[in-house]
C-alpha cells in the first residue's frame, strides 16, 4: 500500500503548478508537505485524490490509480473547510460517511466515539452553522476520518486552531497513524511537520526542493547550529573558518557551522576570553534547511 507519485506534472495553461514531482510515501507513515502558498501542495493533493488529472506522470496507490472505486479507503480534509451549514452534525456526518461506502449504523457508532474524544457530544443534533469555528473544524476532521480510511490526506489540518485544540487534533492524527493509516498532510508550521513526520517534502513553485526522511535530510544537511551566550564580544566569530552564517541575538550570537569539528575549535578559541553562559550545539531546524534551500523564510 505504497503511495507513489512518479514524475507528476500539472500545468494550467501556461502556468505550471506542479513540476516533475516524484515521491514515495511508505505505508503507515506520516508524510509532510511544506511550502509557501501557491507552492503546489493543494494541487498535488487534488491530483492524488483524482479531482484533477495530472498533465504528465503517474500516481498510484498499491500500484493502482486512485479513483472513485477506492474512495471508501481515502479520507480528505480540504484546506477550505466546508460543510452543509443547515444540516445537523449527525445527518451531515452520516451522509458523508455513507457516500464513502459506510453503513449508517456503523457511522453513528464511529461518530459518537469521535464526539466523545473531542468532548463535543452535545453538538450532535446542532446545525453546523451554530457551532464555533474551532468546533466546526473538529466536525470537519470527523467527516474526513469517520469511515476509517487507510489513506488520509489532511490539507492544513491545524490552521486556525488554538493551541489546546491543535494538541487534541495532533493526538487524534497520531492515534490514527498507530491504527495503521497512511497520512499525508501539509502545513505552514514547520514544527508540526518536524514533530510528526518521518518523511517530508518541501515544495517551492511546484518543485520538490527537499525530499526524503527527516533524519536523512538533517544528516545530509550536515550543518549545525551553535548558540553562544557570553559576556564578551563575539562578533569576530563571524569570519571564523567553518562558520557559514552568523546572526547576533540579544544575549550572544547564533552561528551556523559546517560541522561538529568547527564547534570544537570555536570553543577552544573563546575559552579564557571571559565567562561563557551558554554554549550549545543544536541540530539544524527544518526552518534552517528551508531557508538554505528555498532562499527565504516564510514563517
Amino acid at each position, binding site marked *: 500500500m505504497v503511495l507513489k507519485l512518479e514524475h507528476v506534472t500539472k500545468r494550467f495553461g501556461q502556468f505550471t503548478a506542479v513540476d516533475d514531482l516524484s515521491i514515495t510515501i511508505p505505508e503507515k507513515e506520516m508524510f509532510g508537505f511544506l511550502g509557501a502558498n501557491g507552492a503546489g501542495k493543494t494541487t498535488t493533493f487534488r491530483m492524488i485524490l483524482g479531482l*484533477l488529472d495530472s*498533465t504528465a506522470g503517474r500516481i498510484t496507490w498499491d500500484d493502482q490509480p486512485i479513483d472513485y472505486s477506492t*474512495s471508501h479507503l481515502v479520507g480528505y480534509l480540504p484546506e477550505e473547510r*466546508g*460543510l452543509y451549514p443547515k444540516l445537523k452534525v449527525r445527518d451531515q456526518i452520516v451522509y458523508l460517511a455513507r*457516500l464513502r461506502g459506510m453503513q449508517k449504523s456503523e457511522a453513528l457508532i464511529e461518530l459518537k466515539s469521535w464526539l466523545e474524544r473531542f468532548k463535543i457530544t452535545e453538538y450532535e443534533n446542532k446545525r453546523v452553522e451554530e457551532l464555533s469555528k474551532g468546533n466546526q473544524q473538529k466536525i470537519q476532521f470527523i467527516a474526513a476520518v469517520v469511515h476509517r480510511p487507510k489513506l488520509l490526506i489532511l490539507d492544513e489540518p491545524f490552521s486556525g486552531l488554538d493551541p489546546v485544540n491543535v494538541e487534541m487534533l495532533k493526538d487524534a492524527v497520531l492515534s490514527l497513524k498507530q491504527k495503521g493509516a497512511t497520512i499525508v498532510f501539509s502545513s505552514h508550521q514547520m514544527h508540526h511537520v518536524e514533530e510528526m513526520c518521518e518523511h517530508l517534502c518541501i515544495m517551492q513553485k511546484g518543485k520538490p526542493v527537499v525530499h526524503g526522511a527527516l533524519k536523512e535530510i538533517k544528516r545530509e544537511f550536515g550543518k549545525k547550529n551553535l548558540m553562544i551566550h557570553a559576556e564578551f564580544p563575539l562578533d569576530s566569530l563571524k569570519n571564523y573558518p567553518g562558520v557559514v552564517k552568523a546572526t547576533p541575538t540579544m544575549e550572544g550570537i547564533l552561528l551556523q557551522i559546517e560541522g561538529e569539528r568547527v564547534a570544537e575549535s570555536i570553543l577552544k578559541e573563546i575559552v579564557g576570553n571571559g565567562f561563557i553562559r551558554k554554549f550549545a550545539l543544536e541540530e539544524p531546524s527544518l526552518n534552517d534547511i528551508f531557508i538554505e534551500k528555498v532562499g527565504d523564510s516564510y514563517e
Partner: protein
Amino acid sequence: MNSFWIILFHTYLNKLKTKSFIITTVITILIVLGLTNINSIIGVFDKNGGKENVAVLDETGQLYEPFKQQLKTINKDIKLTLYKDSEKEAEKAVEKGDVKGVIQLRFNEEKLPEATYKAMSITDSSLFTDLQTALQQVKTMRAASQINLAPAQLQKLYEPVSFEKFALEKNAKTEEELNQARGLVYVLLFIIYFSVIMYANMIAMEVATEKSSRVMEILISSVSPIKQMFAKILGIGLLSLTQLAAFLIVGYYSLTNNMESLKEGFFGVYGFGDIPVGTIIYAVIFFILGYFLYATLAAFLGSLVSRIEDVQQMITPMTLLVVAGFMISMFGLGKPDASFITATSYIPFFTPMIMFLRVGMLTIPAWEAILGIFILVATIVVLAIFGARVYRGGVLMYGKSNSYKDIKKALQLTKNE
C-alpha cells in the same frame, strides 16, 4: 446502497422537508382547490343564492310583463318585483339592501320604452347589461309592431347568418376541438413553463450552495461529479413529480367532485370535460424532457459561481430562454400553424413548449413530434456530456469572476493536457 441513490434520496428528502417547499405546495394546493370550487365559493358570498332582486316601477302598466319574459331568456337569476309604491320608497328599499336596484320603465314620445336604472353602485355591469338587453328586445318588438312588421318578418331580420368553417386537411381539428385544445394546452404550457423555471432554479441554487459552503470538495472526492450532478437532477426531478402529483391528485379529485357545476362555466368552454389522453401523454413527455434540458443547463451554470448571490445573474440567460419559449408559444396559441411556430418548434430550447403546443393544437404527423423529441434527447445528451465536464472543473474554481469565460476555464481544468 450505491452512492448515486444516496445522493438522489438525500437531495430529494432534504428538499421535501424544507419549509419553503411545504409552504409553496400547500399554497398551490389551496389555489387548485379554490379554482375547482369556484362556483361554490361564489355561492357562499352571494346571500340570495346567486339571485339578484331588482325592483320594477312600471309607469305604463304594459311593459312589466314582456320585460320579465325577455329577461327570463337572458338571465334566470335576476328576480324582478313589481313595485306599486312611489319612486322614493323603491329607492329606500335599495338603500336598505332589500333589492339590488330599481328600474323605472316608461314610454318616450314615440311610444317606445325607455328606462332609468338606479342602484347603490353601478359596478355590477353584467346585471344592468342584462336588463338593458332585455329592454332592447322589448323595444324592438314594440317598434316592429308599430311599423306593422309581422313576427315572421322580424325573425328574418334578426336571424344570424349561417357561417360554417371547414378544415380541408384530413383529421384537422374542428373549431370546437381547437377551442378545447387551446384551454388545455394553455394550462399545460403554463405548468411546463413554471416548473422548468422553478426547478431549474432550485438545482442551480443547490449546486451553488454546496459550492459556496465548500462542502463540494469533500463531495467530489467521494463521488464523481458527474454522478453527483445527475443524482441531483434526478432527485429534484423526483421532487417536482411529487409536487405535480400532489397537485394533480387534489385537482382531479376536486374537479370530479365539482364537475356538474363547473361544466357550465369556463371549464366547459375550454373542454376540460373530456381531456384527450394523447395531449396529456405528450405533456408529460415534453415536461420531463424540458426539465432535463434546463436542469442540466442549470446544474453546470450553478457550478460556475462561487457565491450564492451570483446564481441569479448566471442563470438569467437561461431563464430568458424559457421566457422566450413561453412567449412564442403564447403567440402560437392563436396561430399554431404559423411557419414561424413550426420553425421554432425544432429549436431544442423551445421544443418542450412549442412542439407540445403544435402537438396539442394541430394534427401534425407523428414523425414531426418524434423528430422534436429526438432533437431534444440529442441536445440533452450533448449538454449533459459538456455540462458534466464544465461541472467537474467548475466546482473546483473559486474566484470573483463569474462570466461565461469561466466555462472555458472550467473545461481547461479537466483537460488532460
